[in-house]
Protein backbone atom coordinates (compact mmCIF):
# COMPACT_ATOMS: atom_id res chain seq x y z
CA UNK A 1 0.00 0.00 0.00
CA UNK A 2 1.42 3.32 -0.98
CA UNK A 3 0.36 6.36 0.98
CA UNK A 4 -0.68 8.18 -2.14
CA UNK A 5 -2.57 5.83 -4.42
CA UNK A 6 -1.48 6.14 -8.00
CA UNK A 7 -4.13 5.84 -10.71
CA UNK A 8 -2.59 2.56 -11.82
CA UNK A 9 -2.92 1.07 -8.37
CA UNK A 10 -6.50 2.22 -8.07
CA UNK A 11 -7.28 0.51 -11.35
CA UNK A 12 -5.56 -2.64 -10.04
CA UNK A 13 -7.71 -2.69 -6.92
CA UNK A 14 -10.93 -2.14 -8.83
CA UNK A 15 -10.00 -4.91 -11.20
CA UNK A 16 -9.51 -7.46 -8.41
CA UNK A 17 -12.64 -6.28 -6.67
CA UNK A 18 -14.83 -6.44 -9.77
CA UNK A 19 -13.44 -9.79 -10.85
CA UNK A 20 -14.38 -11.28 -7.50
CA UNK A 21 -17.83 -9.68 -7.58
CA UNK A 22 -18.59 -10.73 -11.12
CA UNK A 23 -17.41 -14.28 -10.49
CA UNK A 24 -19.54 -14.67 -7.37
CA UNK A 25 -22.47 -12.95 -9.07
CA UNK A 26 -22.31 -15.20 -12.12
CA UNK A 27 -22.05 -18.27 -9.92
CA UNK A 28 -25.35 -17.29 -8.30
CA UNK A 29 -27.11 -15.62 -11.20
CA UNK A 30 -26.57 -18.26 -13.89
CA UNK A 31 -29.40 -20.46 -12.59
CA UNK A 32 -31.72 -17.45 -12.59
CA UNK A 33 -30.85 -16.51 -16.13
CA UNK A 34 -31.36 -20.09 -17.22
CA UNK A 35 -34.81 -20.01 -15.61
CA UNK A 36 -35.78 -16.77 -17.32
CA UNK A 37 -34.61 -18.13 -20.63
CA UNK A 38 -36.48 -21.39 -20.18
CA UNK A 39 -39.78 -19.81 -19.07
CA UNK A 40 -39.97 -17.58 -22.12
CA UNK A 41 -39.07 -20.25 -24.66
CA UNK A 42 -41.66 -20.21 -27.44
CA UNK A 43 -42.31 -22.70 -30.23
CA UNK A 44 -39.74 -22.67 -33.05
CA UNK A 45 -37.05 -21.18 -30.73
CA UNK A 46 -38.98 -17.90 -30.48
CA UNK A 47 -39.92 -16.00 -27.31
CA UNK A 48 -43.35 -16.04 -25.65
CA UNK A 49 -44.90 -14.89 -22.37
CA UNK A 50 -47.60 -17.58 -22.39
CA UNK A 51 -46.15 -19.30 -19.34
CA UNK A 52 -46.25 -16.04 -17.39
CA UNK A 53 -49.82 -15.33 -18.48
CA UNK A 54 -50.94 -18.81 -17.41
CA UNK A 55 -49.88 -18.04 -13.83
CA UNK A 56 -52.87 -15.84 -13.04
CA UNK A 57 -55.52 -18.26 -14.25
CA UNK A 58 -54.62 -21.60 -12.66
CA UNK A 59 -56.98 -22.04 -9.69
CA UNK A 60 -54.89 -24.86 -8.19
CA UNK A 61 -51.86 -22.57 -8.24
CA UNK A 62 -53.75 -19.65 -6.70
CA UNK A 63 -55.03 -21.92 -3.93
CA UNK A 64 -51.48 -23.09 -3.20
CA UNK A 65 -50.25 -19.50 -3.06
CA UNK A 66 -52.97 -18.70 -0.52
CA UNK A 67 -52.11 -21.72 1.61
CA UNK A 68 -48.40 -20.90 1.54
CA UNK A 69 -48.98 -17.28 2.51
CA UNK A 70 -51.24 -18.35 5.39
CA UNK A 71 -48.59 -20.80 6.50
CA UNK A 72 -45.99 -18.08 6.34
CA UNK A 73 -48.02 -15.74 8.54
CA UNK A 74 -48.84 -18.44 11.09
CA UNK A 75 -45.22 -19.53 11.25
CA UNK A 76 -44.03 -15.96 11.80
CA UNK A 77 -46.53 -15.45 14.60
CA UNK A 78 -45.69 -18.80 16.18
CA UNK A 79 -41.95 -18.43 16.10
CA UNK A 80 -42.05 -14.87 17.47
CA UNK A 81 -44.37 -15.79 20.33
CA UNK A 82 -42.18 -18.77 21.11
CA UNK A 83 -38.78 -17.08 20.86
CA UNK A 84 -39.02 -13.41 21.85
CA UNK A 85 -40.22 -13.83 25.44
CA UNK A 86 -38.11 -16.96 26.02
CA UNK A 87 -34.91 -15.46 24.68
CA UNK A 88 -35.48 -12.16 26.46
CA UNK A 89 -36.02 -13.99 29.72
CA UNK A 90 -32.90 -16.10 29.26
CA UNK A 91 -30.89 -13.03 28.23
CA UNK A 92 -31.96 -11.04 31.27
CA UNK A 93 -32.28 -13.59 34.01
CA UNK A 94 -30.46 -16.84 33.27
CA UNK A 95 -27.65 -15.96 30.83
CA UNK A 96 -25.93 -19.27 31.45
CA UNK A 97 -28.79 -20.99 29.60
CA UNK A 98 -28.04 -19.00 26.43
CA UNK A 99 -25.70 -21.65 25.03
CA UNK A 100 -28.27 -24.38 25.64
CA UNK A 101 -31.06 -22.44 23.93
CA UNK A 102 -28.72 -21.74 21.03
CA UNK A 103 -27.78 -25.41 20.67
CA UNK A 104 -31.42 -26.48 20.81
CA UNK A 105 -32.40 -23.88 18.22
CA UNK A 106 -29.56 -24.88 15.90
CA UNK A 107 -30.53 -28.55 16.02
CA UNK A 108 -33.04 -28.39 13.13
CA UNK A 109 -30.23 -27.17 10.87
CA UNK A 110 -28.55 -30.52 11.16
CA UNK A 111 -31.70 -32.63 10.91
CA UNK A 112 -32.30 -33.41 7.26
CA UNK A 113 -35.83 -32.88 6.06
CA UNK A 114 -36.28 -36.53 5.29
CA UNK A 115 -35.46 -37.49 8.87
CA UNK A 116 -37.92 -34.97 10.17
CA UNK A 117 -40.60 -36.39 7.96
CA UNK A 118 -39.99 -39.99 8.96
CA UNK A 119 -40.08 -39.01 12.61
CA UNK A 120 -42.99 -36.67 12.17
CA UNK A 121 -45.28 -39.09 10.35
CA UNK A 122 -46.69 -40.72 13.48
CA UNK A 123 -47.09 -37.32 15.14
CA UNK A 124 -48.94 -36.02 12.13
CA UNK A 125 -51.33 -38.93 12.41
CA UNK A 126 -52.44 -37.49 15.75
CA UNK A 127 -52.34 -33.90 14.59
CA UNK A 128 -54.52 -34.63 11.60
CA UNK A 129 -56.87 -36.48 13.91
CA UNK A 130 -57.06 -33.47 16.26
CA UNK A 131 -56.97 -30.49 13.87
CA UNK A 132 -58.25 -32.10 10.68
CA UNK A 133 -56.14 -32.75 7.63
CA UNK A 134 -55.32 -29.09 6.91
CA UNK A 135 -52.09 -27.97 5.26
CA UNK A 136 -51.92 -25.33 7.99
CA UNK A 137 -50.83 -28.01 10.45
CA UNK A 138 -47.48 -27.72 8.66
CA UNK A 139 -47.00 -24.62 10.80
CA UNK A 140 -45.66 -26.83 13.60
CA UNK A 141 -42.87 -28.25 11.43
CA UNK A 142 -42.10 -24.92 9.85
CA UNK A 143 -41.64 -23.29 13.24
CA UNK A 144 -39.02 -25.94 14.01
CA UNK A 145 -37.33 -25.41 10.65
CA UNK A 146 -37.24 -21.65 11.09
CA UNK A 147 -35.89 -21.78 14.66
CA UNK A 148 -32.18 -21.55 13.76
CA UNK A 149 -32.59 -18.48 11.56
CA UNK A 150 -35.08 -16.71 13.80
CA UNK A 151 -32.87 -17.44 16.81
CA UNK A 152 -29.84 -15.94 15.06
CA UNK A 153 -31.71 -12.79 14.13
CA UNK A 154 -33.27 -12.21 17.54
CA UNK A 155 -30.05 -13.09 19.33
CA UNK A 156 -28.18 -10.54 17.24
CA UNK A 157 -30.92 -8.01 18.04
CA UNK A 158 -30.69 -8.63 21.76
CA UNK A 159 -26.91 -8.38 21.59
CA UNK A 160 -26.91 -5.11 19.64
CA UNK A 161 -28.57 -3.10 22.41
CA UNK A 162 -27.55 -3.39 26.03
CA UNK A 163 -30.86 -4.96 26.92
CA UNK A 164 -29.71 -5.91 30.41
CA UNK A 165 -28.96 -2.32 31.40
CA UNK A 166 -32.10 -1.02 29.71
CA UNK A 167 -34.20 -3.56 31.61
CA UNK A 168 -32.50 -2.66 34.89
CA UNK A 169 -33.07 1.02 34.25
CA UNK A 170 -36.74 0.37 33.53
CA UNK A 171 -37.07 -1.86 36.60
CA UNK A 172 -35.53 0.74 38.90
CA UNK A 173 -37.95 3.31 37.49
CA UNK A 174 -40.80 1.03 38.58
CA UNK A 175 -41.53 -1.09 35.53
CA UNK A 176 -42.94 -4.62 35.77
CA UNK A 177 -41.34 -7.42 33.75
CA UNK A 178 -44.25 -7.46 31.28
CA UNK A 179 -43.81 -3.76 30.63
CA UNK A 180 -40.07 -4.26 30.24
CA UNK A 181 -40.75 -6.82 27.51
CA UNK A 182 -43.40 -4.86 25.65
CA UNK A 183 -42.26 -1.26 26.13
CA UNK A 184 -38.48 -1.64 26.24
CA UNK A 185 -37.28 -4.87 24.65
CA UNK A 186 -39.65 -5.29 21.69
CA UNK A 187 -39.39 -1.69 20.39
CA UNK A 188 -35.62 -1.87 20.53
CA UNK A 189 -35.23 -5.14 18.64
CA UNK A 190 -37.80 -4.27 16.01
CA UNK A 191 -35.17 -4.63 13.28
CA UNK A 192 -34.27 -8.11 14.47
CA UNK A 193 -37.93 -9.10 14.63
CA UNK A 194 -38.37 -7.91 11.06
CA UNK A 195 -35.35 -9.95 9.95
CA UNK A 196 -36.64 -13.07 11.67
CA UNK A 197 -40.05 -12.62 10.07
CA UNK A 198 -38.68 -12.06 6.59
CA UNK A 199 -36.42 -15.11 6.75
CA UNK A 200 -39.33 -17.14 8.06
CA UNK A 201 -41.59 -16.06 5.18
CA UNK A 202 -38.87 -16.76 2.63
CA UNK A 203 -38.22 -20.24 3.98
CA UNK A 204 -41.89 -21.20 4.19
CA UNK A 205 -42.55 -20.02 0.65
CA UNK A 206 -39.56 -22.04 -0.59
CA UNK A 207 -40.10 -25.25 1.35
CA UNK A 208 -40.76 -28.32 -0.81
CA UNK A 209 -39.54 -31.61 0.65
CA UNK A 210 -41.64 -31.86 3.80
CA UNK A 211 -44.92 -30.67 2.37
CA UNK A 212 -44.42 -32.95 -0.60
CA UNK A 213 -43.65 -36.01 1.50
CA UNK A 214 -46.58 -35.27 3.85
CA UNK A 215 -48.82 -34.73 0.80
CA UNK A 216 -49.84 -31.13 1.35
CA UNK A 217 -50.37 -28.87 -1.67
CA UNK A 218 -48.14 -25.90 -0.88
CA UNK A 219 -46.72 -23.51 -3.45
CA UNK A 220 -43.55 -25.47 -4.24
CA UNK A 221 -45.39 -28.78 -4.45
CA UNK A 222 -47.85 -27.34 -6.95
CA UNK A 223 -44.99 -25.77 -8.89
CA UNK A 224 -43.42 -29.20 -9.09
CA UNK A 225 -46.69 -30.79 -10.25
CA UNK A 226 -47.14 -28.03 -12.80
CA UNK A 227 -43.59 -28.68 -13.94
CA UNK A 228 -44.59 -32.16 -15.01
CA UNK A 229 -47.57 -30.77 -16.97
CA UNK A 230 -46.04 -27.54 -18.23
CA UNK A 231 -42.40 -26.97 -17.34
CA UNK A 232 -42.42 -23.40 -18.62
CA UNK A 233 -45.24 -22.29 -16.26
CA UNK A 234 -43.55 -24.04 -13.35
CA UNK A 235 -40.30 -22.23 -13.99
CA UNK A 236 -42.08 -18.90 -14.39
CA UNK A 237 -43.79 -19.35 -11.00
CA UNK A 238 -40.49 -20.34 -9.41
CA UNK A 239 -38.91 -17.26 -10.84
CA UNK A 240 -41.71 -15.07 -9.49
CA UNK A 241 -41.42 -16.66 -6.04
CA UNK A 242 -37.72 -16.07 -6.14
CA UNK A 243 -38.10 -12.40 -7.01
CA UNK A 244 -40.62 -12.08 -4.18
CA UNK A 245 -38.11 -13.64 -1.78
CA UNK A 246 -35.41 -11.32 -3.09
CA UNK A 247 -37.60 -8.29 -2.41
CA UNK A 248 -38.10 -9.57 1.12
CA UNK A 249 -34.31 -9.83 1.46
CA UNK A 250 -33.95 -6.23 0.41
CA UNK A 251 -36.53 -5.25 3.05
CA UNK A 252 -34.40 -7.11 5.58
CA UNK A 253 -31.23 -5.33 4.48
CA UNK A 254 -33.08 -2.01 4.67
CA UNK A 255 -34.44 -2.75 8.15
CA UNK A 256 -31.00 -3.54 9.51
CA UNK A 257 -29.59 -0.35 8.05
CA UNK A 258 -31.80 1.96 10.08
CA UNK A 259 -30.54 3.99 13.03
CA UNK A 260 -27.27 4.89 11.39
CA UNK A 261 -27.13 8.58 12.16
CA UNK A 262 -23.97 9.44 14.01
CA UNK A 263 -24.00 10.80 17.52
CA UNK A 264 -22.42 14.20 18.09
CA UNK A 265 -19.08 14.40 19.87
CA UNK A 266 -18.90 15.81 23.33
CA UNK A 267 -18.15 19.47 22.98
CA UNK A 268 -14.50 19.72 23.94
CA UNK A 269 -14.21 22.87 25.97
CA UNK A 270 -11.74 23.79 28.61
CA UNK A 271 -13.66 26.84 29.68
CA UNK A 272 -16.09 26.80 32.52
CA UNK A 273 -19.59 27.06 31.08
Amino acid at each position, binding site marked *: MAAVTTPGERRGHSLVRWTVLVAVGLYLLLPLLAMLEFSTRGPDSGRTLDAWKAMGTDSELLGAITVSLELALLSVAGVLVLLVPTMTWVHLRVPRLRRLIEAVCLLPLTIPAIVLVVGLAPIYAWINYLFGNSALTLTFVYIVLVLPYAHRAIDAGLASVDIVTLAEAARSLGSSWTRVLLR*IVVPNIRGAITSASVICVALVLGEFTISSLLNFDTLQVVINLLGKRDAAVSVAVSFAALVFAFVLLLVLAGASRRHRESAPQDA*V*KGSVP
Partner: protein
Amino acid sequence: MTSQTSNARKADGRRADESSGEESGEKSGRSGAQVRLVDLRRSYGPVRALDGLSLDVGPGEFVALLGPSGCGKTTALRALAGLDTLDSGQILVGDRDITHVGANRRDMGMVFQAYSLFPNMTARDNVAYGLQLRRVGSQERRRRAGDLLDLVGLSSHAAHYPHQLSGGQQQRVALARALAVEPQVLLLDEPLSALDAKVRSQLRDEIRRIQIDVGTTTLFVTHDQQEALGVADRVGVIRSGRLEQVGPPAELYDRPRTPFVAEFVGLTNRLHGTAQSGTAEVLGVGVPLLEGSTGSGAVTVFVRPESVQVTPDGKGNGRVLTASFLGSQSTVRVRLDDDTTVLAQVSSAELAHLPPGTQVRVTVAAAPALATRAVR
Protein backbone atom coordinates in the same frame (compact mmCIF):
# COMPACT_ATOMS: atom_id res chain seq x y z
CA MET B 1 -19.15 17.19 57.91
CA THR B 2 -22.81 17.02 58.92
CA SER B 3 -22.82 20.76 59.41
CA GLN B 4 -21.45 21.24 55.90
CA THR B 5 -24.13 18.98 54.51
CA SER B 6 -26.97 20.84 56.19
CA ASN B 7 -25.43 24.12 55.07
CA ALA B 8 -25.47 22.73 51.60
CA ARG B 9 -29.11 21.90 51.85
CA LYS B 10 -29.96 25.30 53.14
CA ALA B 11 -28.14 26.80 50.22
CA ASP B 12 -30.18 24.49 48.04
CA GLY B 13 -33.49 25.87 49.30
CA ARG B 14 -32.28 29.32 48.41
CA ARG B 15 -31.05 28.30 44.98
CA ALA B 16 -34.28 26.54 44.13
CA ASP B 17 -36.20 29.69 45.03
CA GLU B 18 -34.11 31.70 42.66
CA SER B 19 -34.22 29.37 39.70
CA SER B 20 -37.74 27.98 39.42
CA GLY B 21 -40.20 29.57 41.77
CA GLU B 22 -43.17 27.28 41.50
CA GLU B 23 -41.14 24.10 41.92
CA SER B 24 -39.48 25.23 45.11
CA GLY B 25 -42.18 24.07 47.51
CA GLU B 26 -42.03 20.59 46.07
CA LYS B 27 -38.25 20.47 46.11
CA SER B 28 -37.69 21.49 49.67
CA GLY B 29 -40.29 18.87 50.70
CA ARG B 30 -38.16 16.24 49.04
CA SER B 31 -35.55 15.66 51.74
CA GLY B 32 -33.19 12.69 51.56
CA ALA B 33 -33.69 9.47 53.46
CA GLN B 34 -31.29 7.75 55.81
CA VAL B 35 -29.75 4.58 54.32
CA ARG B 36 -28.32 1.73 56.38
CA LEU B 37 -26.50 -1.24 54.94
CA VAL B 38 -26.08 -3.91 57.61
CA ASP B 39 -23.55 -6.74 57.27
CA LEU B 40 -24.17 -7.40 53.56
CA ARG B 41 -22.82 -10.71 52.29
CA ARG B 42 -22.79 -12.14 48.81
CA SER B 43 -20.63 -14.85 47.27
CA TYR B 44 -20.30 -15.84 43.65
CA GLY B 45 -18.96 -19.36 43.88
CA PRO B 46 -15.69 -19.02 45.81
CA VAL B 47 -15.52 -15.23 45.35
CA ARG B 48 -16.83 -13.11 48.21
CA ALA B 49 -18.10 -9.98 46.48
CA LEU B 50 -19.52 -8.64 49.73
CA ASP B 51 -17.97 -9.84 52.95
CA GLY B 52 -19.85 -8.18 55.77
CA LEU B 53 -20.16 -4.66 54.40
CA SER B 54 -21.90 -2.18 56.70
CA LEU B 55 -22.41 1.52 56.05
CA ASP B 56 -24.66 4.29 57.33
CA VAL B 57 -25.49 7.20 55.06
CA GLY B 58 -27.12 10.27 56.58
CA PRO B 59 -30.16 12.00 55.04
CA GLY B 60 -29.08 14.16 52.12
CA GLU B 61 -25.48 13.00 52.39
CA PHE B 62 -23.35 12.32 49.30
CA VAL B 63 -21.19 9.23 49.89
CA ALA B 64 -18.76 7.82 47.35
CA LEU B 65 -17.81 4.14 47.36
CA LEU B 66 -14.26 3.88 46.05
CA GLY B 67 -12.31 0.76 45.22
CA PRO B 68 -10.55 -1.20 42.50
CA SER B 69 -12.65 -3.19 40.07
CA GLY B 70 -14.00 -6.37 41.57
CA CYS B 71 -13.89 -5.02 45.14
CA GLY B 72 -17.66 -5.31 45.60
CA LYS B 73 -18.64 -1.65 45.42
CA THR B 74 -20.92 -2.14 42.45
CA THR B 75 -22.44 -5.26 43.97
CA ALA B 76 -23.30 -3.22 47.06
CA LEU B 77 -24.97 -0.52 44.98
CA ARG B 78 -26.89 -3.04 42.90
CA ALA B 79 -28.04 -4.85 46.03
CA LEU B 80 -29.32 -1.52 47.33
CA ALA B 81 -31.17 -1.00 44.06
CA GLY B 82 -32.60 -4.52 44.20
CA LEU B 83 -30.83 -5.57 40.99
CA ASP B 84 -28.58 -8.12 42.70
CA THR B 85 -29.53 -10.60 45.36
CA LEU B 86 -27.86 -10.94 48.75
CA ASP B 87 -26.93 -14.07 50.66
CA SER B 88 -27.55 -12.30 53.94
CA GLY B 89 -27.72 -8.83 55.44
CA GLN B 90 -30.25 -6.08 55.76
CA ILE B 91 -30.98 -2.88 53.86
CA LEU B 92 -32.90 -0.08 55.57
CA VAL B 93 -34.07 3.14 53.94
CA GLY B 94 -35.54 5.55 56.45
CA ASP B 95 -37.36 3.23 58.87
CA ARG B 96 -38.32 0.75 56.18
CA ASP B 97 -36.61 -2.62 55.70
CA ILE B 98 -36.46 -3.00 51.91
CA THR B 99 -34.29 -6.12 51.85
CA HIS B 100 -37.11 -8.15 50.32
CA VAL B 101 -38.76 -5.48 48.19
CA GLY B 102 -38.67 -5.75 44.37
CA ALA B 103 -36.46 -3.40 42.38
CA ASN B 104 -39.51 -1.75 40.83
CA ARG B 105 -40.94 -0.82 44.22
CA ARG B 106 -37.83 0.51 45.94
CA ASP B 107 -38.21 4.16 45.02
CA MET B 108 -34.61 4.70 43.98
CA GLY B 109 -33.18 6.56 41.04
CA MET B 110 -30.23 4.95 39.35
CA VAL B 111 -27.74 6.25 36.80
CA PHE B 112 -25.74 3.56 35.03
CA GLN B 113 -22.27 3.57 33.54
CA ALA B 114 -23.50 4.31 30.03
CA TYR B 115 -26.02 3.53 27.33
CA SER B 116 -28.95 3.13 29.68
CA LEU B 117 -31.30 5.55 27.92
CA PHE B 118 -34.16 3.89 26.07
CA PRO B 119 -33.08 4.25 22.43
CA ASN B 120 -36.67 4.27 21.16
CA MET B 121 -37.70 7.32 23.20
CA THR B 122 -36.76 10.99 23.05
CA ALA B 123 -34.91 12.61 25.94
CA ARG B 124 -38.23 13.97 27.25
CA ASP B 125 -39.96 10.58 27.05
CA ASN B 126 -37.02 8.95 28.79
CA VAL B 127 -37.29 11.41 31.66
CA ALA B 128 -41.08 11.04 31.77
CA TYR B 129 -41.03 7.22 31.70
CA GLY B 130 -40.96 6.77 35.47
CA LEU B 131 -43.74 9.32 35.89
CA GLN B 132 -45.87 7.50 33.33
CA LEU B 133 -45.48 4.29 35.34
CA ARG B 134 -46.69 6.25 38.36
CA ARG B 135 -49.80 7.29 36.37
CA VAL B 136 -48.93 10.99 36.41
CA GLY B 137 -51.12 12.84 33.87
CA SER B 138 -49.56 13.64 30.50
CA GLN B 139 -49.61 17.45 30.99
CA GLU B 140 -47.95 17.20 34.37
CA ARG B 141 -45.48 14.61 33.06
CA ARG B 142 -44.45 16.88 30.24
CA ARG B 143 -44.04 19.82 32.57
CA ARG B 144 -41.92 17.93 35.09
CA ALA B 145 -39.77 16.31 32.42
CA GLY B 146 -39.18 19.80 31.04
CA ASP B 147 -38.19 21.13 34.47
CA LEU B 148 -35.71 18.31 35.00
CA LEU B 149 -34.14 18.69 31.57
CA ASP B 150 -33.81 22.34 32.46
CA LEU B 151 -32.06 21.40 35.70
CA VAL B 152 -29.44 19.39 33.80
CA GLY B 153 -29.13 22.12 31.16
CA LEU B 154 -30.66 20.21 28.27
CA SER B 155 -34.08 21.78 27.81
CA SER B 156 -33.20 22.49 24.18
CA HIS B 157 -32.60 18.78 23.54
CA ALA B 158 -35.93 17.43 24.79
CA ALA B 159 -36.95 16.08 21.38
CA HIS B 160 -33.59 14.44 20.63
CA TYR B 161 -33.17 10.68 20.63
CA PRO B 162 -30.30 9.17 22.64
CA HIS B 163 -28.22 8.45 19.53
CA GLN B 164 -28.37 12.16 18.71
CA LEU B 165 -26.82 13.08 22.06
CA SER B 166 -23.16 13.01 23.09
CA GLY B 167 -22.04 10.74 25.92
CA GLY B 168 -22.08 13.58 28.42
CA GLN B 169 -25.54 14.69 27.34
CA GLN B 170 -26.84 11.14 27.60
CA GLN B 171 -25.63 10.91 31.18
CA ARG B 172 -27.31 14.23 31.99
CA VAL B 173 -30.59 12.89 30.64
CA ALA B 174 -30.07 9.68 32.63
CA LEU B 175 -29.60 11.81 35.74
CA ALA B 176 -32.78 13.77 34.99
CA ARG B 177 -34.65 10.52 34.45
CA ALA B 178 -33.46 9.13 37.77
CA LEU B 179 -34.44 12.33 39.60
CA ALA B 180 -37.83 12.65 37.88
CA VAL B 181 -39.47 10.12 40.16
CA GLU B 182 -38.25 12.05 43.23
CA PRO B 183 -36.44 9.02 44.60
CA GLN B 184 -35.56 8.61 48.26
CA VAL B 185 -32.05 7.62 47.25
CA LEU B 186 -30.00 8.41 44.16
CA LEU B 187 -27.58 5.71 43.01
CA LEU B 188 -24.74 6.53 40.62
CA ASP B 189 -22.86 3.55 39.19
CA GLU B 190 -19.67 4.94 37.61
CA PRO B 191 -21.75 7.47 35.66
CA LEU B 192 -18.66 9.30 34.35
CA SER B 193 -16.33 6.48 33.43
CA ALA B 194 -17.26 6.38 29.74
CA LEU B 195 -16.65 10.10 29.24
CA ASP B 196 -13.67 12.22 28.19
CA ALA B 197 -11.53 13.72 30.95
CA LYS B 198 -12.81 17.28 30.55
CA VAL B 199 -16.48 16.38 30.20
CA ARG B 200 -15.97 14.09 33.18
CA SER B 201 -14.77 16.82 35.51
CA GLN B 202 -17.44 19.25 34.34
CA LEU B 203 -20.26 16.76 34.78
CA ARG B 204 -18.84 15.71 38.16
CA ASP B 205 -19.19 19.24 39.49
CA GLU B 206 -22.62 19.53 37.93
CA ILE B 207 -23.84 16.33 39.56
CA ARG B 208 -22.67 17.72 42.88
CA ARG B 209 -24.42 21.04 42.29
CA ILE B 210 -27.69 19.32 41.38
CA GLN B 211 -27.45 16.98 44.35
CA ILE B 212 -27.01 19.98 46.66
CA ASP B 213 -30.02 21.53 44.91
CA VAL B 214 -32.40 18.62 45.31
CA GLY B 215 -30.98 17.25 48.56
CA THR B 216 -31.39 13.56 47.71
CA THR B 217 -29.28 11.06 49.65
CA THR B 218 -26.73 9.88 47.11
CA LEU B 219 -24.40 6.91 46.72
CA PHE B 220 -21.76 7.20 44.05
CA VAL B 221 -19.67 4.22 43.00
CA THR B 222 -16.33 4.84 41.28
CA HIS B 223 -12.88 3.39 40.83
CA ASP B 224 -11.40 6.85 40.25
CA GLN B 225 -10.11 8.42 43.45
CA GLN B 226 -10.03 11.94 41.98
CA GLU B 227 -13.73 11.64 41.25
CA ALA B 228 -14.55 10.28 44.70
CA LEU B 229 -12.48 12.90 46.57
CA GLY B 230 -13.75 15.76 44.43
CA VAL B 231 -17.45 15.15 44.78
CA ALA B 232 -18.39 13.42 48.03
CA ASP B 233 -19.13 14.46 51.61
CA ARG B 234 -17.61 11.19 52.71
CA VAL B 235 -15.69 8.51 50.85
CA GLY B 236 -15.72 4.82 51.73
CA VAL B 237 -12.76 2.81 50.47
CA ILE B 238 -13.83 -0.77 49.77
CA ARG B 239 -11.48 -3.70 49.44
CA SER B 240 -12.43 -7.34 48.98
CA GLY B 241 -16.05 -6.75 49.96
CA ARG B 242 -15.33 -4.86 53.19
CA LEU B 243 -15.10 -1.20 54.13
CA GLU B 244 -11.39 -0.40 54.63
CA GLN B 245 -11.83 3.20 55.79
CA VAL B 246 -14.60 5.77 55.58
CA GLY B 247 -14.34 9.50 56.13
CA PRO B 248 -14.27 12.95 54.57
CA PRO B 249 -11.92 13.25 51.54
CA ALA B 250 -9.25 15.25 53.37
CA GLU B 251 -9.14 12.72 56.21
CA LEU B 252 -8.62 9.80 53.83
CA TYR B 253 -5.92 11.68 51.99
CA ASP B 254 -4.05 13.09 54.96
CA ARG B 255 -4.56 10.31 57.49
CA PRO B 256 -4.87 6.97 55.69
CA ARG B 257 -5.17 4.10 58.16
CA THR B 258 -3.83 1.31 55.95
CA PRO B 259 -1.21 1.03 53.18
CA PHE B 260 -4.03 0.10 50.79
CA VAL B 261 -5.82 3.40 51.43
CA ALA B 262 -2.55 5.34 51.26
CA GLU B 263 -1.79 3.87 47.85
CA PHE B 264 -5.27 3.84 46.43
CA VAL B 265 -6.20 7.39 47.43
CA GLY B 266 -3.78 9.79 45.77
CA LEU B 267 -0.29 9.02 44.54
CA THR B 268 2.21 7.70 47.05
CA ASN B 269 5.92 6.89 47.17
CA ARG B 270 7.20 3.93 49.15
CA LEU B 271 10.44 5.00 50.83
CA HIS B 272 12.75 3.10 53.16
CA GLY B 273 13.10 4.40 56.69
CA THR B 274 13.90 3.54 60.29
CA ALA B 275 11.21 4.07 62.90
CA GLN B 276 11.63 4.86 66.56
CA SER B 277 9.07 6.15 69.07
CA GLY B 278 6.54 7.58 66.62
CA THR B 279 9.04 9.03 64.18
CA ALA B 280 10.70 7.58 61.10
CA GLU B 281 13.94 8.75 59.62
CA VAL B 282 13.52 8.98 55.83
CA LEU B 283 16.25 10.41 53.58
CA GLY B 284 17.74 12.09 56.63
CA VAL B 285 14.49 13.74 57.77
CA GLY B 286 12.44 12.78 60.82
CA VAL B 287 8.85 12.15 59.71
CA PRO B 288 6.10 11.93 62.38
CA LEU B 289 4.11 8.73 62.00
CA LEU B 290 0.32 8.43 61.76
CA GLU B 291 -1.79 6.25 64.03
CA GLY B 292 -1.69 2.64 62.86
CA SER B 293 1.95 2.81 61.78
CA THR B 294 4.63 0.33 62.73
CA GLY B 295 6.53 2.11 65.50
CA SER B 296 10.05 0.68 65.34
CA GLY B 297 12.63 -0.99 63.13
CA ALA B 298 13.04 -0.94 59.34
CA VAL B 299 9.87 0.43 57.79
CA THR B 300 8.35 1.42 54.46
CA VAL B 301 7.04 4.97 54.70
CA PHE B 302 4.27 6.21 52.42
CA VAL B 303 5.11 9.73 51.30
CA ARG B 304 2.98 11.95 49.02
CA PRO B 305 4.67 13.44 45.91
CA GLU B 306 4.01 16.95 47.24
CA SER B 307 6.03 16.08 50.36
CA VAL B 308 9.11 15.20 48.30
CA GLN B 309 11.57 18.01 47.62
CA VAL B 310 13.95 17.90 44.69
CA THR B 311 16.81 20.35 44.11
CA PRO B 312 19.59 20.22 41.49
CA ASP B 313 22.80 19.18 43.20
CA GLY B 314 25.83 17.72 41.43
CA LYS B 315 26.57 15.62 44.53
CA GLY B 316 22.96 14.67 45.17
CA ASN B 317 21.48 11.30 45.95
CA GLY B 318 19.52 10.77 42.73
CA ARG B 319 19.11 11.47 39.06
CA VAL B 320 16.01 12.72 37.20
CA LEU B 321 14.46 10.03 34.98
CA THR B 322 11.56 11.95 33.46
CA ALA B 323 10.11 15.43 33.90
CA SER B 324 6.43 16.02 33.19
CA PHE B 325 4.91 19.47 32.72
CA LEU B 326 1.31 19.25 33.89
CA GLY B 327 0.13 22.87 33.81
CA SER B 328 -0.02 24.67 37.13
CA GLN B 329 2.00 21.90 38.78
CA SER B 330 4.53 19.47 37.36
CA THR B 331 6.16 16.22 38.41
CA VAL B 332 9.58 14.66 38.13
CA ARG B 333 10.46 11.00 38.57
CA VAL B 334 13.84 10.50 40.19
CA ARG B 335 15.93 7.35 40.58
CA LEU B 336 17.69 7.36 43.94
CA ASP B 337 21.15 5.90 44.39
CA ASP B 338 19.62 2.89 46.17
CA ASP B 339 17.60 2.27 42.98
CA THR B 340 14.17 3.21 44.33
CA THR B 341 12.14 5.50 42.09
CA VAL B 342 10.49 8.57 43.60
CA LEU B 343 7.77 10.77 42.18
CA ALA B 344 7.95 14.39 43.30
CA GLN B 345 5.59 17.28 42.69
CA VAL B 346 7.41 20.48 41.74
CA SER B 347 6.31 23.88 40.56
CA SER B 348 6.41 24.35 36.81
CA ALA B 349 9.02 27.08 37.31
CA GLU B 350 11.41 24.61 38.99
CA LEU B 351 10.86 22.11 36.16
CA ALA B 352 13.09 24.03 33.75
CA HIS B 353 16.07 23.26 36.02
CA LEU B 354 15.28 19.55 36.22
CA PRO B 355 15.64 18.02 32.74
CA PRO B 356 16.09 14.21 32.56
CA GLY B 357 19.60 13.23 33.57
CA THR B 358 20.07 16.02 36.14
CA GLN B 359 21.82 14.99 39.36
CA VAL B 360 19.55 16.05 42.25
CA ARG B 361 19.23 15.97 46.00
CA VAL B 362 15.95 14.47 47.26
CA THR B 363 14.56 15.12 50.74
CA VAL B 364 11.11 14.88 52.28
CA ALA B 365 8.92 17.29 54.25
CA ALA B 366 8.12 16.46 57.85
CA ALA B 367 4.41 15.91 57.14
CA PRO B 368 2.80 13.03 59.09
CA ALA B 369 2.94 9.75 57.16
CA LEU B 370 1.97 6.11 57.45
CA ALA B 371 4.66 3.43 57.89
CA THR B 372 4.54 -0.37 57.76
CA ARG B 373 7.13 -3.02 58.46
CA ALA B 374 9.58 -3.11 55.54
CA VAL B 375 9.05 -6.13 53.32
CA ARG B 376 12.56 -6.69 52.14
